[in-house]
């Protein structure tokens, strides 16, 4: 095999391999859409996070604006501290409302941000004051059954009178 032909093929191979890596990073992965370098970190404390996981998306009006980077349990207040990094392009008012929502009926859980009306914006390290916990299905069913039962009780009492 000619030396130059071999060099050409090896060159094509190496460039194609690196190109494949770049395609994977930008087209398949999230490097093109979201970069962690340009973001700020805010914390929110939730009474119950349900099935929220690290790396879950943070959305506002359905648009992904950031990601959950860490979840911790605080023994001072006995609630969950959710740390999320939000893209620096998106600024939110200080009184932004954060709630844990579910995409679809059995989909994964994410944090929804609803902007408030404050003039000041959230800065890195700030804490979101208004939060809404995840809906836990068991609790909802339990409450529903409890309500039904007490309704039935009331009826029986009315009949007896």
């Amino acid at each position, binding site marked *: 095999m000619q030396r130059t032909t071999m*060099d050409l093929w090896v060159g094509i*191979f190496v460039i194609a*391999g690196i190109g494949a890596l770049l395609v994977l*990073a930008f087209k398949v*992965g999230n490097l093109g859409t979201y970069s962690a370098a340009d973001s700020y970190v805010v914390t929110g404390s939730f009474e119950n996070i349900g099935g929220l996981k690290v790396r879950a998306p943070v959305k506002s009006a359905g648009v992904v604006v950031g990601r959950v980077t860490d979840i911790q349990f605080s023994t001072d207040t006995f609630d969950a501290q959710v740390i999320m990094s939000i893209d620096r392009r998106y600024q939110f008012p200080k009184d932004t409302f954060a709630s844990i929502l579910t995409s679809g009926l059995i989909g994964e859980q994410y944090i929804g941000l609803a902007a408030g009306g404050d003039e000041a914006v959230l800065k890195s390290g700030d804490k979101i004051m208004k939060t809404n916990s995840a809906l836990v299905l068991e609790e909802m069913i339990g409450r529903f059954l409890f309500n039904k039962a007490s309704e039935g009780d009331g009826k029986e009492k009315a009949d007896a009178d």
Partner: protein
Amino acid sequence: MPRRIVIGIRGVGHRVIDSIWRLGYASRFFLLTILKSGTGLRRFRLIIREVYFTGVLSLIIILVSGLFVGMVLGLQGYETLQRYGAESAVGTMVALSLLRELGPVVAALLFASRAGSAITAEIGLMKATEQLAAMELMAVDPIARVVAPRFWAGVISMPLLAALFSAIGVFGGYLVAVVLIGVDEGSFWSQMQDAVDFRYDIVNGVIKTCVFGVAVTAIAVFEGYDASPTAEGVSGATTRTVVTSSLAILGLDFVLTSFMFRGMS
């Protein structure tokens, strides 16, 4: 009767000592290869030549298998996901399974049987025809001249081949899911980009392929260098290369996966 028991126990001990000795020999050979790779790295042309034989000539089988693996993943993923009305997640499924597991593992298995066996056979035949001994007589170190360039060529080629495998696999999944079946193109790509994380999925996959590349080529060059210099010896060494490196890939993959993807998702 006790005599036979003693012989049996002795046989077990002999085998254990033998395999430990071989493991030590292989580790020392591996260290020696790395220590003596200075010559090969200075004469980079030697490595380029070997990248051609291990990398470029493996391209066809890697690309064709990647395409078909991706297409099958697309078909099977669609079959299952459409029952739950989640057929737009087929892109996520194809990309994640390729990047995390199938890309690195299947590409490494193909690489072991396509390039690893060739390396072993070449070095073993060099030994059988006394070319390695002739080099030593001419004061040329066979480890620096023959073994090290092949080792580094394998280590360079493996991640590139696996990246090509995964990329063309995703393309195969796209062909089946979007072009053939008609899943919505926008949600195919956007759900994929939503779920695939660069640091967590892609970088971990690349780390896996680098480890596999080192393991496969180290086993291949050692088996070739260690082969008994006969026709049977070379054929046995080639078989051992494929078997040992396939087992090493699967075992290492489990260890790496349990470290990388533990308790997070």
